[in-house]
């Protein structure tokens, strides 16, 4: 199990569909960006402000973002414009956005965050994966703080099969500001919750092996059953993983499952942004399963809780 080192979540930004970029981003500089990127910029600003990040050196802040569909619309537009009328039909200002790392890069550009910048793409799980990657990079000393989460755009035709009915109109983003717990305490900034560990696996297809792998992963993440388990599945559900997760959680309250991800890789992040204020004393396991079998586990504790004291198997490696 990958110990993330204890990370503190000290800021968050959650944006979905109904937002006015001008309110947060000022008069200019965002009009030619795809809506998804605009959402990412607003979420980033909120997360950085919440974390009182002016205390943190921008060059030492990294960015790790998951996405599935942030550039689907613009890529589609460029290709259709080309087919329709050739190069002259294509707006040059839109062109850089054919590259899927641009939404995250724009966040770095706007705030001069230069420690590193990484975009991940796994279907439905890229957001939580980015949290894990960012936390690992923090532990490795690549940054003093990281902005992690997901930036999303309108999904590709066909995606309803795994995402569920499209609820995402144009853009959504959920970003967390993470830093080492000791630094957060030193800075005297409010800690919303703490991240204690995580796992990244690709589950086998066969249901029996799938359930076993899911259970093994949960056990590696945390020896004891958590206070809350929040499981996100693709729209069609997954009996093997749901059963395994339910059994691991135990026969008591605190288990919840969501089928479908209307905001793709941002769905679990948007949920998390709301849920951080309510992390129970015995911790929260966030589990996200993608349709290709990507399985991401993250273990959170409330800000006042040291998970190590109640949970010997969670000790860092």
């Amino acid at each position, binding site marked *: 199990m990958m110990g993330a080192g204890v990370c503190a979540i000290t800021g968050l930004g959650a944006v979905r569909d109904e937002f006015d970029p001008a309110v947060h981003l000022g*008069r*200019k*500089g965002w*009009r*030619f960006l795809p809506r998804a990127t605009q959402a990412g910029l607003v979420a980033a600003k909120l997360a950085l402000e919440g974390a009182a990040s002016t205390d943190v050196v921008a060059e030492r802040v990294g960015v790790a973002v998951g996405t599935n569909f942030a550039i689907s619309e613009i890529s589609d537009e460029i290709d259709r414009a080309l087919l329709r009328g050739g190069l*002259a039909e294509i*707006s*040059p*200002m839109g062109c*850089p956005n054919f590259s899927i790392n641009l939404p995250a890069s724009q966040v770095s550009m706007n705030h001069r965050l230069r420690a590193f910048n990484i975009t991940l793409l796994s279907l439905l799980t890229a957001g939580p994966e980015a949290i894990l990657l960012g936390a690992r990079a923090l532990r490795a000393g690549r940054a003093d703080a990281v902005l992690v989460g997901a930036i999303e755009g309108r999904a590709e035709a066909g995606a309803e099969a795994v995402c569920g009915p499209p609820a995402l109109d144009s853009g959504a983003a959920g970003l967390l500001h993470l830093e080492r717990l000791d630094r957060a305490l030193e800075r005297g900034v409010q800690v919303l919750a703490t991240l204690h560990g995580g796992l990244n696996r690709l589950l086998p297809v066969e249901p029996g092996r799938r359930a076993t792998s899911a259970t093994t992963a949960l056990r590696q993440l945390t020896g004891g059953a958590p206070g809350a388990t929040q499981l996100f599945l693709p729209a069609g559900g997954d009996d093997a993983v749901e059963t395994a997760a339910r059994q691991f959680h135990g026969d008591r309250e605190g288990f919840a499952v969501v089928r479908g991800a209307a905001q793709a890789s941002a769905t679990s992040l948007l949920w998390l942004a709301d849920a951080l204020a309510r992390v129970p004393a015995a911790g929260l396991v966030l589990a996200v399963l993608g349709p290709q079998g990507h399985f991401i586990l993250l273990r959170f504790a409330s800000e006042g809780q040291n998970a190590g004291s109640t949970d010997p198997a969670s000790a860092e490696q």
Partner: protein
Amino acid sequence: MSTTTSQDVMDELREMIAEVLEEDPENITETSLFVEEHEADSLRAIEILARIEKKYKVEVPQERLADMVNLRAVYDTLVEFSAEKS
């Protein structure tokens, strides 16, 4: 025969450039520099050129971008390539 005056064209260009540079049209004078005074970069310059080519149905080689530093220069370039076309 077109009744568009050179002032009309100048105003059209000003509107178009203002939109790309996200400025109020009043702030774009004939001589105010796109890069130094209006925060333009290479991307916005290419966009301005693209819009001119599309609207006025001219073709301007990308090498001329470096010369198109303000509204006056853009206007003169347009006149030059419109003349070549006709």
